[in-house]
């Protein structure tokens, strides 16, 4: 990790690498994040409406439930878990393959800090773009809930919009963004570590990829708990 944050050989090349990684890891994940978020929002809406049958609970509570569920947990944590699978396996297998085909050695022979060249741009790109993905997910989740809630008739558009604006706490968004930044670091660094230290051949690349995804997912869940206790208690 210390080597990954070593002094870059050429700043311009690292800047270009960060943009490449943002495009690859971030922009390339917009589709899957959009699909998951819309469906999560829709399901939370339908489940909330189903469970809020009591006349004591106002219908606009569906909007509140969707908003808070998406902002507090579903967008930062669940989307990060999905990204740990998609992006994490991609990072571990890419770097692992480079390791077993001697491409990492080729970088070292050229006098390039291979850990820094390969891992640092991925971590920075992930930390910069993951919060964008999370905000995008929050927005689409709430929108998905609105669309399916109104289409199925479980909530009116007025009640839903009233619900999502009712007692809105901006701090919750900040909490989600802090979590997404930490998760972004885990998503990029843990699989990169496993990929970088791959030894062997194709089988070991697969194992590194699996390890990277499993360990980063467990760490995300653990830090989700720790950060929730620290930031919301």
């Amino acid at each position, binding site marked *: 990790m210390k080597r990954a944050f070593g002094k870059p*050989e050429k700043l311009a090349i690292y800047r270009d690498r960060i943009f490449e990684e943002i495009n690859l890891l971030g922009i390339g994940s917009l589709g899957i994040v959009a699909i998951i978020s819309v469906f999560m929002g829709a399901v939370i809406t339908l489940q909330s409406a189903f469970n809020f049958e009591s006349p004591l609970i106002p219908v606009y509570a569906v909007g509140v439930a969707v908003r808070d569920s998406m902002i507090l947990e579903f967008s930062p944590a669940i989307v990060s878990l999905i990204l740990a699978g998609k992006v994490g396996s991609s990072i571990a297998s890419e770097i692992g393959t480079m390791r077993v085909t001697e491409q990492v050695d080729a970088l070292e022979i050229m006098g390039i800090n291979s850990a820094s060249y390969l891992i640092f741009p991925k971590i920075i790109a992930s930390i910069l773009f993951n919060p964008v993905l999370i905000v995008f997910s929050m927005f689409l989740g709430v929108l998905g809930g609105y669309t399916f809630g109104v289409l199925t008739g479980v909530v009116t558009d007025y009640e839903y919009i009233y619900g999502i604006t009712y007692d809105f706490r901006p701090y919750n968004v900040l909490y989600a963004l802090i979590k997404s930044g930490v998760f972004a670091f885990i998503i990029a660094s843990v699989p990169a570590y496993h990929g970088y230290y791959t030894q062997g051949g194709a089988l070991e690349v697969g194992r590194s990829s699996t390890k990277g995804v499993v360990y980063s997912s467990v760490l995300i869940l653990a830090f989700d708990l720790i950060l929730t206790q620290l930031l919301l208690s």
Partner: protein
Amino acid sequence: MIIGESGSGKTTLLKCMIGLNELDSGEVLFDGRNFHDLDFNGKKAIRKEIGMLFQGGALFDSKTVEENVVFPISMFTDLSESEKRDRANFCLQRVNLENANKLYPSELSGGMKKRVAIARAIAVQPKYLFCDEPNSGLDPITSIVIDNLIKEITDEYEITTIVITHDMNSVIEIGDNIMFIYKGDNWWEGSKQEILKTANIEVCDFVYATKFMKDLKSKF
């Protein structure tokens, strides 16, 4: 040239020389500089003087042929984009690969990959060129092309080239000083002429393992 059976430790020795493996004992000197005693920056300075041809080419899969050759130039020079491309194209022409600039490594044959790797290795004009089994997996004609290319580049740029191989044809074609490794030890050293006349049993078993070499020996 460093020769020896598979598993004798040739590639391990090469990796020790270029600092990819740590040494248990001994030293590696580059013009009097002990590589393994140097700090990170000292090692980095020496590595900039090294060109390496890996067994599988080790080309960057995500980059085109031209980008692979431009890469070390971009890292270590301040040339403009057009100058970098000119330098890369010069190196590619030198290895007789003029029309492959936009191809990706997955679109190249084994011989072409080796030639691109040579072009990349000479792109920043190294003082030392290390080649790990440059003609493994190549047909005999392409092997000769690669051998000749290494020989020409060594003479043309006046660089020190160390080639690891178990191909005796290469040894006969381009070898000057030869080291034979047997079970991890430096077993024998000598010139190309000397290796053909040595009485060392292990060296003879290796050198004259093929019918071609036995026939060659009978002519002496």
